[in-house]
């Protein structure tokens, strides 16, 4: 028994060492060949995985790839051959930093292209500036990326978030009388946004525009795009009774918000989104059906909605290709989500009614579920039931009267205190 155990240990060590060695060999960079003199090497960084991928980053990545392939096939630009290295930022700022440094230092790229989330652009731009390489940002619309930073090597081909925000308020102010039957100064508006660089920036534009138009701002609130529950935000909105809601979010949170808004019977005359999830029309329609027809969105038009006849003829097949390739990429993503989510049980089936499914959806529930079980007393069915209600109420009420996150703080503090007072569970008999 002891012998075999030790032998198996040795085998595992050997095998894992071998795997590591192979992987290292596979990953070590191929020595660069200086054959062609004029070559431009581009490092492309987008999120192929994680919540931002479905929120639109993989579409951007696809667009970039199509254009790069197109020019590479044509033989390059201005006599320069083009070569691209692609990297996945996995929806995490620290990975984006790692990849940016790696592409510049190891792969020796001449410039970086891409970046979807402003939370990645802000730190990466600082690094790139330090290394004195070019960074060409396709998305990251937050003003915080460029404003007052005096960057010399970073470029962005996008309007800033503030401009988005101003545009949407301007649009509502112009149409208020004709379409909503109210003077702008009588209009009750709410501004809600995810609290990353992007949402904060657009909401600032919203606020500025609302002030200019004379709207009555009844609610302005941020939330974390990863928040697992937005019901208390919806309740707050119901209480504030806005005519128009200005919303800025990514994708999973937009679907979640809209579903919960529908369930709780939130009413409004107009809802204006600002890109990201609101630009991915297909996904919204999948989630909400006909309701999407009552939404407005400030965004460059999705290419598959573009009028083919108005385009240059050579662009039409390109666009068809985008849609086709999009399906393919999505299938791979589906397989990995299925594998990742294979352990979700019956509760998950019920939760899917409210949530967009993505491979990371489970992460926000695991710890809370566990805490609730222990709070109720392990193996105590009734206790678990009561604990779940108490937890949910604390989270919702905390979120209703303060910011969303404070609800969780209250619930966690309650848990800790109850562990001191009643460690065997809420309904346990005193021994």
């Amino acid at each position: 028994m002891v012998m075999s155990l030790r032998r198996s240990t040795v085998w595992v060590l050997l095998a894992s060492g071998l795997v590591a060695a192979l992987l290292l060999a596979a990953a070590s960079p191929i020595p660069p060949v200086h054959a062609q003199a004029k070559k431009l090497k581009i490092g492309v960084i987008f999120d192929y995985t994680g919540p931002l991928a479905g929120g639109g980053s993989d579409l951007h990545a696809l667009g970039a790839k199509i254009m790069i392939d197109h020019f590479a096939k044509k033989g390059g630009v201005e006599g320069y051959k083009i070569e691209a290295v692609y990297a996945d930022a996995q929806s995490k700022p620290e990975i984006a930093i790692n990849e940016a440094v790696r592409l510049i230092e190891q792969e020796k790229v001449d410039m970086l292209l891409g970046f979807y989330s402003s939370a990645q652009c802000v730190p990466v731009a600082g690094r790139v500036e330090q290394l004195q390489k070019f960074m060409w940002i396709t998305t990251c619309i937050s003003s915080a990326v460029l404003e007052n930073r005096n960057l010399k090597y970073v470029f962005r081909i996008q309007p800033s978030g503030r401009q988005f925000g101003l545009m949407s308020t301007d649009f509502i102010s112009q149409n208020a009388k004709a379409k909503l039957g109210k003077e702008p100064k009588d209009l009750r508006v709410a501004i809600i946004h995810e609290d990353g660089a992007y949402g904060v920036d657009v909401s600032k534009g919203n606020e500025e525009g609302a002030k200019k138009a004379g709207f009555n701002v009844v609610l302005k609130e941020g939330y974390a795009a990863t928040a697992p529950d937005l019901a208390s935000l919806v309740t707050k909105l119901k209480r504030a009774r806005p005519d128009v809601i200005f919303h800025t979010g990514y994708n999973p949170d937009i679907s979640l918000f809209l579903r919960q808004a529908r369930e709780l019977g939130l009413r409004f005359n107009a809802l204006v989104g600002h890109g990201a999830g609101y630009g991915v029309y297909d996904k919204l329609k999948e989630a909400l059906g006909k309701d999407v027809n009552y939404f407005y969105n400030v965004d460059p038009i999705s290419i598959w909605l573009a009028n083919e006849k108005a385009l240059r003829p050579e662009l039409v097949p390109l666009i068809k290709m985008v849609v086709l390739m999009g399906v393919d990429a999505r299938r791979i993503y589906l397989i990995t989500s299925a594998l990742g989510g294979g352990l979700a049980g019956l509760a998950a089936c019920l939760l899917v009614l409210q949530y967009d499914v993505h491979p990371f959806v489970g992460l926000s529930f695991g710890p809370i579920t566990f805490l609730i079980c222990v709070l109720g007393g392990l193996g105590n069915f009734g206790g678990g039931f009561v604990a779940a209600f108490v937890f949910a109420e604390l989270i919702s009420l905390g979120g209703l009267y303060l910011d969303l996150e404070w609800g969780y703080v209250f619930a966690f503090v309650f848990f800790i205190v109850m562990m001191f007072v009643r460690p065997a569970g809420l309904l346990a008999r005193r021994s």
Partner: protein
Amino acid sequence: VTRSLGWIAGAGLVALPFVYQQPYHLHLMVVILIWSFAYTSWSVMGRFGLVSLGHGGFMGIGAYVTALAWNHGGVTPWIGIPLALLAGGILAVLVAYPCFRFRITGHYFALVTLALSGIVLQVITATRDHTGGSLGYTPTRHQGGSSLYALQFTGKTTWYLIALAVWGAGLYVWYRVDRSMMRYALEAISEDEDGAAAAGVHVTAEKLKITVLSAMMTALAGALYCQYQMFISPDTVSGISISLQMVFAVVVGGIYVSLGPTVGAVITILLAEVLRISFGTRAVGWDNLVYGILLVLFIVFLPKGIVGSIVDAVRPRRAGRLAV
């Protein structure tokens, strides 16, 4: 022999950045050293059965207190970091003292601390007017880039040496604890609290001491991470996922040996980087899948961790827990 080998390895590590200058590799090494120190801090208490899932919270406190003091109060990190350590220590006492007093041990202790890291994460996110919320937070650059006063350096070599020194100090603390009477007291406590108390061990005090030590070390790791990366966000330095990351890495490396957490950090970080780079964008998402499977395999087949198993294989005769 082991000792002289150790000195040679140490000298090699110090000399490394002067010989080898690849910035990406140095960057990885700095990150690995900082995380190694954080993991070592966790295992200082984790090895005695005090499984804390609250270290993500301590790390977040360390990073955010230092950065907030610098940006809002203009307090140099030389004062900010001790403040951060103090804050981490106070938080540890606030949570751990009642836990030990009311004899909350084992899984229950893990869960109480789990709630703690949840609280820290949510408070950082909720106070977005000061901390930037999910957007993250960047310490203001001192003019000129590098400055000892602001503890900001643009060169990777400086950071490498700082991280190396702190990591070495972490190992030294581990070693001192390993050689102290405290270790015997804590081992007795982890076996049987009543027995230890009967034998004259002050259970609550001993556990509290090691918890505060571990929490303060972790807060230091958070502060260093912040000063090096110059960017922190709630998810990268705090929360439950960071706590779990610490536990996984330490278990993979080996919880009862001094170099275990370091090896855990090296393996988990390199594995994640190598997998991501080699799978690249060709097979999106598979790197995480393989990473997860390998982690599970390591934990199932090498419950003593990689270093622990090697030590056992090399010295099969000697019994008991050995320090390398």
